């Protein structure tokens, strides 16, 4: 299966270049830890802020690694090979986005509950936070791939990616953080989770296709 090859390849590369993974993770940890220092250690306020802070930090952290998603392959010519593959390019892109999520998204999901403890979140809220990140971070990788493909090889590409991609992240942010808040307020959060799931399905269906067309445009 071609998609397995591409995932295996990107994981191998990530393992051999661990610094990329670690930078994303430490960025996430540092951003989340900075907030109490800037607004004060008042626990009630921190608890109220926690879902938003963790989610915004997750958005930024996953964006940090976006411009490396295709640019290395672009530079050494392997991206050209992928475009000329007899396999569907959308499928290859899906594999790359999945690998990106495994490498940058999963560490965030694992780290989030630990950071949540810093903010004194109740146990149930920690579970919800982890769940929302688990559903939401793949969407970030999938939508981010479009931005990464469009800005390939451009001057100031990494700043441009954030301009293009951050507004598109907003629905995920709203429902991701919203679910945790709803849980802490004692309201049901099922609707939030199903909407996040719907976003995931929609971006699974559309984003690889948009990314594939963007790559063809960018390499022309």
């Amino acid at each position, binding site marked *: 299966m071609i998609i397995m090859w591409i995932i295996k390849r990107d994981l191998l590369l990530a393992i051999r270049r661990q610094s990329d993974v670690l930078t994303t993770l430490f960025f996430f940890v540092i951003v989340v830890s900075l907030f109490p220092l800037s607004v004060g250690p008042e626990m009630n306020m921190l608890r109220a802020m926690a879902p938003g802070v963790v989610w915004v930090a997750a958005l930024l952290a996953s964006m940090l690694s976006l411009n490396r998603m295709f640019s290395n392959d672009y530079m050494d010519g392997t991206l050209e090979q992928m475009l000329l593959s007899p396999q569907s390019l959308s499928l290859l892109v899906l594999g790359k986005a999945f690998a990106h999520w495994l490498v940058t998204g999963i560490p965030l999901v694992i780290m989030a509950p630990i950071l949540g403890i810093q903010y004194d979140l109740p146990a149930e809220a920690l579970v919800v936070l982890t769940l929302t990140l688990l559903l939401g971070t793949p969407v970030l990788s999938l939508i981010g791939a479009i931005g990464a493909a469009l800005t390939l090889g451009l001057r100031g590409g990494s700043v441009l990616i954030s301009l*293009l991609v951050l507004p598109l992240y907003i629905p995920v942010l709203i429902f991701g953080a919203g679910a945790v808040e709803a849980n802490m307020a004692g309201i049901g959060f099922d609707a939030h989770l199903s909407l996040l799931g719907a976003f995931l399905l929609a971006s699974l269906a559309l984003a690889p296709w948009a990314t594939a067309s963007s790559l063809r445009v960018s390499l022309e």
Partner: protein
Amino acid sequence: MTINWFKYSSPASFYSLAGKMIPIFAFAAVISLVAGLYVGFFVAPTDFQQGEAYRIIFIHVPAAWMSMFLYVVMAFWAGIGLAFNTRLSSMFATAIAPTGAMFTFIALWTGSLWGKPMWGTWWVWDARLTSELILLFLYIGFMSLQAAIDDPRRADKAGAIIALVGVVNIPIIYFSVQWWNTLHQGASVSINQAPSMASTMLLGMLIMVFASWMYSIAIILKRVRVIIIERESHTAWVAELQKKDSIR
């Protein structure tokens, strides 16, 4: 008389057609603007709740509507350009973006100025204003992406993809913001629902909407003409125009 519409899809013949159309739309814009302002300021009565402050509606609502329409129209032309590889439609998309962004900015600015006397603060995270803000980001993203790409063909196609992605997302974003807004604060005075709008108020607003349409068409045609000359400078027909000194 039959008009060969297909003929006008080429930049060369469209260029001269647009030149003839601009004065018509500009004239219509000025006339309807004057009429709309007259109705807005001299015919429409004072609102019993909001006093005179509501008169901002005559630019706020048209600007907000235009900003959203123009994004959809822009994405439409960009998509046509991407699908059928027609240069002119892509140029249209590029020409629409700055005007759309300007209307978005006006909607935000006037919304804020209206909010101050109504809510007591310059900025409220009201669903409509928040969506406008995000729309402004989308316009800026589209324009910066196109500006960063040197090759016009790649710029057209890349812009089209991000515009289409944006247009798919706008309803989702709007819906999310609405949801978020109702969760976090109770119903406040919403800008766009004056409970009992006098018919003259509505009339003034509609005339202003018409004026904005006419203005947008005129200014976009004007910008398209400039873009055509910039892009097609190497082609024979532009050289022909130069020779006859009829670039105007």
